[in-house]
């Protein structure tokens, strides 16, 4: 069983759907869980008159606090105790890096059920993660899911 599980989450309910499964696995093997949210790198926020309202570092702080709060609530609802980490950048890249830094032996994530076109154009984050990492990846697709 995995000993260190990395769980990348965006802020959608779909991505949370993987948590009960992670909770089951973590309980079964006494694993450490790290919840990760990757946000886009913020730029400065401008007002309508062109003046800067919030500088990038302030915006980063705000986003980090927001995501941390969200993840903490989400984790406690799912009955998971784990570390919470927020990173900024390209999701797949940051997930793979975080898995290495954490020494993860499992990346568990929910895949969004994008249409065939969006997959063709973009490729989903989960697929990119699968391709780029040497860590086992568990992908959960909520639309098909049984409880």
């Amino acid at each position: 069983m995995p000993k260190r599980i990395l769980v990348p989450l965006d802020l959608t309910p779909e991505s949370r759907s993987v948590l009960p499964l992670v909770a089951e696995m973590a309980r079964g093997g006494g694993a450490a869980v790290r919840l990760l949210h990757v946000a886009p790198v913020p730029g400065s926020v401008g007002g309508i008159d062109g003046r800067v309202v919030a500088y990038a570092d302030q915006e980063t702080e705000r986003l980090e606090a927001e995501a941390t709060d969200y993840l903490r609530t989400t984790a406690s609802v799912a009955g998971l105790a784990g570390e919470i980490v927020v990173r900024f950048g390209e999701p797949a890249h940051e997930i793979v890096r975080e898995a290495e830094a954490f020494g993860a032996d499992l990346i568990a994530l929910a895949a969004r059920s994008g249409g065939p076109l969006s997959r063709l154009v973009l490729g989903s984050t989960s697929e990119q993660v699968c391709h780029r990492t040497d860590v086992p990846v568990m992908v959960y697709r909520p639309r098909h899911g049984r409880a």
Partner: protein
Amino acid sequence: MRQILFATDFSACSEEARRVARDYAWQLGARIHLLHVVWPTADPTPKPQLQALAAEFGSDVPVVTAVESGMPVAERIVDYAERHAIDLIVLGTHGRTGVSRVLIGSVAERVVRTAPCPVLTVPCRLRRGPDEAPAAALPAYHCPVCARPSEDLICEPCRARIRGEALERKRREEQGR
């Protein structure tokens, strides 16, 4: 999680996945469904290779073996998972292999997209923790004659036997002349 499907093509890459599947099954008290998909024209009776692989799981993990025939492979795997109420599909992937992943990784990708349950993909070059000993060199190839793991194209005993038979035939032909 009671039913774990492990689909294998008997490659070295699926060997890493087998290790992971066994570990999960053992910890969760789950049953392993060992599935091999063959071409529609191929003989669907289980090969000795499959039985040998089943034996590698040991006696403490219940294993069911199955052979499905048909194409595409991904569809057969998903279909099996649906019929047997599988809770987790474990697949080996070829991991970070540059160009070839475009060609090879497609079965795993299709399974991930269409599976009725979570899918665990295990890369070929699985990264290990520092406390784990490196895995012993795994037999990457099975002898096509006797289906035993072999490092050579045809394993040493089979080669010796074939060579012996050929010599025997030659001698008989020479005697007959």
